[in-house]
């Protein structure tokens, strides 16, 4: 069967259950795709032997009737997740050769559900970036190309390898992480579906920390239903992460078929600034009309502090990062560049080990936390963060779920000058996604159509805290209407 990699996770699971094909056949099909598409640089570490051993073990489980919810499903894992015995570097030079002696909770749960790991996926260094270009291993490449052009495009970031690999069918689904849009923006750029769960829904244990009050793990998959299936396995309280929630985890697939009739869809005025790309606007308007036609009620809402979200984010995220990344000292793991004193060893190691964007953010973070500036920057940002969160609390008194574009543009070319010369231009990619992280809410991006250049555009659905179910069922209804043709 040559088209096994075309199947969604849900379809593949049904095929495995019926023994239409084996887990080993499925894994081999994906390994072949992984090899054929190496040009995309989506995987930074391939573990075919381990994957085949896991697949054979899965086949034995099927034979014994003991198959788990994701038994034999081949996944790609973002290189930010610690995987026991498999090199994990967060795509940074400073973690050269690091092989974790332990497993992150999310990947542990996926393994318990029977998933097969094909390897580790490319990403921006320490998840800092919106194009995958800050990776020490070079950028992953978007499988999509603009019409009439052969230029390589970015897959988005930071989970660029995850989105590219799912779009190119190099894995059935992937894990990602999202601190300011890092699941949703690459999903939008690559025409796949990505879900950032509520802060606290998934354990952060064993995920290389970037900004601890914002980071959250989630799935990137071929469709909405697969995101629900994956989240079922990934979510849940973990004593090893004190910020993970003790709330019960529902079966996220159970609500997908529910009608959206009578559901109130919030449309925020502030997400339609003057000068917004008309293609993003028209894609958004089509989504609004589809939901209205399905019986949902469209409610205009206001999120007045939206325009401050990026500035708040670029204080809080670097502040937390500067603290989290203090651990990379050349002593305990990864790269060591010798020096004559301890300080010199630290400085040599960190200067060589971190890339320019990471160094920039560590310095910004150090500055805004330093004596004399803490109140003016960090405390101020935390206060505005509360106002941003309050905006959502107010909005959700009037609506059940919010619909917006995921990103202001479609995928841009590698090495785009306007982005590389001014970091703020790159950061603007996150303009529609960062508020969600600051407020800790769940949000999903699904492919909604093609731009005039023939590239995917995404729509974002934002839900109340711990209401992934409404997000998923609305996305599922939209997905049926949009009928997007995957790459």
């Amino acid at each position, binding site marked *: 069967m040559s088209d096994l990699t075309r199947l969604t996770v849900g379809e593949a699971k049904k095929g495995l259950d019926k023994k239409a094909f084996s887990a080993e056949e499925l894994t081999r099909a994906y390994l072949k795709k992984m090899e054929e598409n190496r040009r995309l640089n989506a995987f930074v570490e391939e573990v075919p032997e381990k994957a085949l051993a896991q697949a054979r073990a899965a086949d034995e489980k099927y034979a014994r009737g003991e198959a788990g919810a994701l038994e034999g499903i081949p996944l790609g894992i973002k290189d930010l997740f610690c995987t026991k015995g498999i090199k994990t570097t967060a795509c940074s030079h400073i973690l050269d050769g690091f092989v974790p002696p332990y497993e992150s909770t999310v990947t542990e749960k996926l393994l318990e559900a029977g998933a097969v790991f094909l390897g580790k996926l490319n990403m921006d260094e320490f998840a800092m970036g919106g194009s995958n270009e800050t990776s020490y291993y070079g950028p992953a490449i978007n499988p999509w190309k603009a019409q009439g052009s052969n230029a390589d495009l970015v897959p988005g970031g930071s989970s660029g390898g995850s989105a590219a690999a799912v779009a190119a069918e190099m894995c059935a689904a992937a894990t990602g992480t999202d601190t300011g849009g890092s699941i949703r923006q690459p999903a939008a750029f690559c025409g796949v579906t990505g879900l950032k769960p509520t802060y606290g829904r998934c354990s952060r244990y064993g995920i290389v920390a970037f900004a601890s009050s914002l980071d959250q793990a989630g799935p990137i998959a071929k469709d909405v239903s697969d995101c629900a299936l994956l989240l079922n396995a990934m979510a849940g309280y973990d004593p090893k992460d004190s910020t993970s929630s003790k709330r019960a985890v529902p079966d996220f697939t159970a609500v997908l078929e529910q009608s959206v009739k009578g559901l109130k869809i919030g449309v925020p005025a502030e997400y339609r600034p003057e000068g917004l790309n008309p293609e993003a606007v028209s894609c958004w308007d089509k989504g609004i009309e589809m939901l209205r036609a399905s019986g949902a009620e469209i409610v205009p809402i206001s999120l007045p502090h939206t325009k401050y979200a990026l*500035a708040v984010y*670029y204080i809080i995220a670097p502040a937390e990062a500067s603290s989290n990344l203090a651990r990379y000292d050349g002593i*305990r793991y990864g790269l060591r560049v010798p020096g004559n004193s301890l300080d*010199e060893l630290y400085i040599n190691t960190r200067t060589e080990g971190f890339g320019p964007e990471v160094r920039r953010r560590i310095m*910004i973070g*150090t500055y805004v936390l330093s004596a004399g500036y803490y109140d003016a920057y960090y*405390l101020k940002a935390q206060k505005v963060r509360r106002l941003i*969160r309050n905006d959502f609390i107010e909005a959700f008194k009037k609506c059940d779920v919010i619909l917006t574009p995921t990103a202001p543009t479609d995928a841009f070319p590698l090495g785009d000058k306007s982005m590389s010369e001014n*970091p703020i231009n790159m950061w603007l990619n996150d303009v529609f996604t960062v508020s969600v992280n600051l407020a800790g809410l769940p949000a999903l991006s699904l492919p909604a159509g093609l731009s005039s250049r023939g590239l995917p555009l995404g729509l974002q659905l934002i839900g109340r805290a711990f209401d992934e179910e409404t997000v998923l069922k609305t996305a599922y209804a939209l997905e049926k209407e949009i009928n997007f043709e995957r790459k």
Partner: protein
Amino acid sequence: MAIDTETVRKIAFLSRLRIENSKIEETEKEFNHILDWIEQLNDVDTDNVEPLESVNDEALSLREDVVCEGNQRDEVLQNAPDAAYGYFVVPKVVE
């Protein structure tokens, strides 16, 4: 709040990062460009607003103070660039 060369050097040291002399000016300019952009937050009235430290409304849980996964010295040291006698090795810090 523009920052000067001296501050850039100080922040670099606090970050344990080296900036080559030839790059100091460029870094200073970039820093000020970013800080100028961040200044927009001064337009927001935050009087009587409590800073938001965590979006998690659940109380942090306490646990028994017991060793749960102990005796892993070798695993802890296995990734060290330099280790000896069951310890991490660092340059001499005491004269």
